[in-house]
């Protein structure tokens, strides 16, 4: 058991996964690279030194000096990277713990509100019911925000496990449209969906992909002023299924386009008439799609609308 633990210390990919960082940012990997650089440079210094310096003792001294300097630099660099990685991991863990802790009182709150608005509790007046509904809406928003934060902390600590299986994107899209139908109608938005015939199934986690579609569709509807139209297309391109959603909404200003997939980012033109939204949806969508082996992107023009797309691999 102990031997296994010691061996694990040297298993760089496993160690890097712990931090949820790419290889080139991972302290363990950097230390290995630095080690190789030190060995190579001492050999080079030795080869060059022994050619031009006659006294072998001086050569050895130079080589040792160079190695010592390089080693000090390597330790400083990897140490600081390690500290950064650790801080990052702790931040994600903090978000996860806080979100979990917030959930319990919130569940209580939601259930009590549900009890009050469901007609099960006696003696609630019309006026009170109105206020309770406001409480309900807000507690629902809070719940969504917390579940987004939990997904993000899972993404960042590399703990988001995708339960992949063969799924029909078409069915998933239809279900999501159905779910958001009331919201679309209330926003005067017509949602159209056209899928090419005989589309193959994709290989992905249905609950996560549903979240992606939900986020994209919700955005498309939410950011349409007064009334408009959303068009969803689904087709097969090579070994992928391509989902496309086009809206006649407010669009994304050019200067904001490069930040759109960053977490907590919200475009200024959007905030002018939609205060709701956490700026987490697209970040989650990108992480999920990329983890599923697909790509995500968009085209947008301010005032005209946006078109988002993603692809997913066919098994």
């Amino acid at each position, binding site marked *: 058991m102990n031997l296994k633990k010691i061996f694990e210390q040297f298993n760089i990919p496993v160690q890097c996964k712990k931090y949820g960082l790419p290889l080139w940012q991972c302290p363990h990997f950097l230390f290995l690279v630095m080690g190789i650089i030190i060995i190579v440079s001492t050999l080079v210094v030795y080869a060059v030194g022994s050619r031009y310096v006659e006294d072998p003792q001086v050569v050895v001294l130079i080589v040792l000096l160079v190695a010592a300097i390089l080693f000090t630099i390597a330790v400083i660099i990897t140490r600081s990277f390690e500290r950064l990685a650790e801080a990052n991991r702790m931040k994600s863990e903090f978000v996860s713990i806080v979100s*979990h802790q917030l*959930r*319990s009182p*919130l*569940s*209580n709150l*939601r*259930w*009590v509100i*549900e*009890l009050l608005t*469901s007609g*099960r*509790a006696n003696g609630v007046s019309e006026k009170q019911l109105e206020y309770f509904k406001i409480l309900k809406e807000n507690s629902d928003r809070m*719940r969504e925000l*917390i*579940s987004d934060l*939990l997904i993000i902390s899972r993404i960042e600590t590399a*703990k988001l*496990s995708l339960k992949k299986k063969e799924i029909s994107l078409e069915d998933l899209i239809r279900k999501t449209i159905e779910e958001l139908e009331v919201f679309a109608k209330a926003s005067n938005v017509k949602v159209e969906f056209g899928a090419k015939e005989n589309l193959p199934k994709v290989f992905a986690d249905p609950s996560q992909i549903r979240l992606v579609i939900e986020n994209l569709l919700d955005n498309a509807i939410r950011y349409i002023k007064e009334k408009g139209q959303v068009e969803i297309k689904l087709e097969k391109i090579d070994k992928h299924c391509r989902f496309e959603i086009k809206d006649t909404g407010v669009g994304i200003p050019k200067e904001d386009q490069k930040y759109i997939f960053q977490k907590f980012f919200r475009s200024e033109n959007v905030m002018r008439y939609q205060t709701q939204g956490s700026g987490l949806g697209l970040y989650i969508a990108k992480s999920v799609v990329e983890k599923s082996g697909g790509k995500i992107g968009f085209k947008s023009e301010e005032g005209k609308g946006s078109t988002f797309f993603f692809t997913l691999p066919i098994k």
Partner: protein
Amino acid sequence: MKTILFVEDESTLQKTFGEILKQEGYEMISALDGEIGLRLAKIKNPDLILLDLILPKVHGFEVLKKLKEDKETKDIPVIVLTNLEGIGNVEKAIELGATTYLVKANYSLEEVIEKIKKALGE
């Protein structure tokens, strides 16, 4: 009248749920920690157990394990009702013999009642 044992340390939830279960025509017995939960399961022999996981004295998983090991209680269906969502918890609970695993935040009261009815075969 069918009885439901609700093992949950939050008294607010006990109250809310008790009210609703009563309306639905069930009798609710409440236990505020794992130890009392185990004892009441044996004495009262309820038709269903609603079990939280993060409990004082005895953890929910331990309660579940002991319930399923005991001849007298092993056939009582157990619904895990918790906010604990971590990877592996669902699998562990099902493996130990839980009927369903519900994350409180993801379900409304009505949906939980539906699951209870289903577990009771109604």
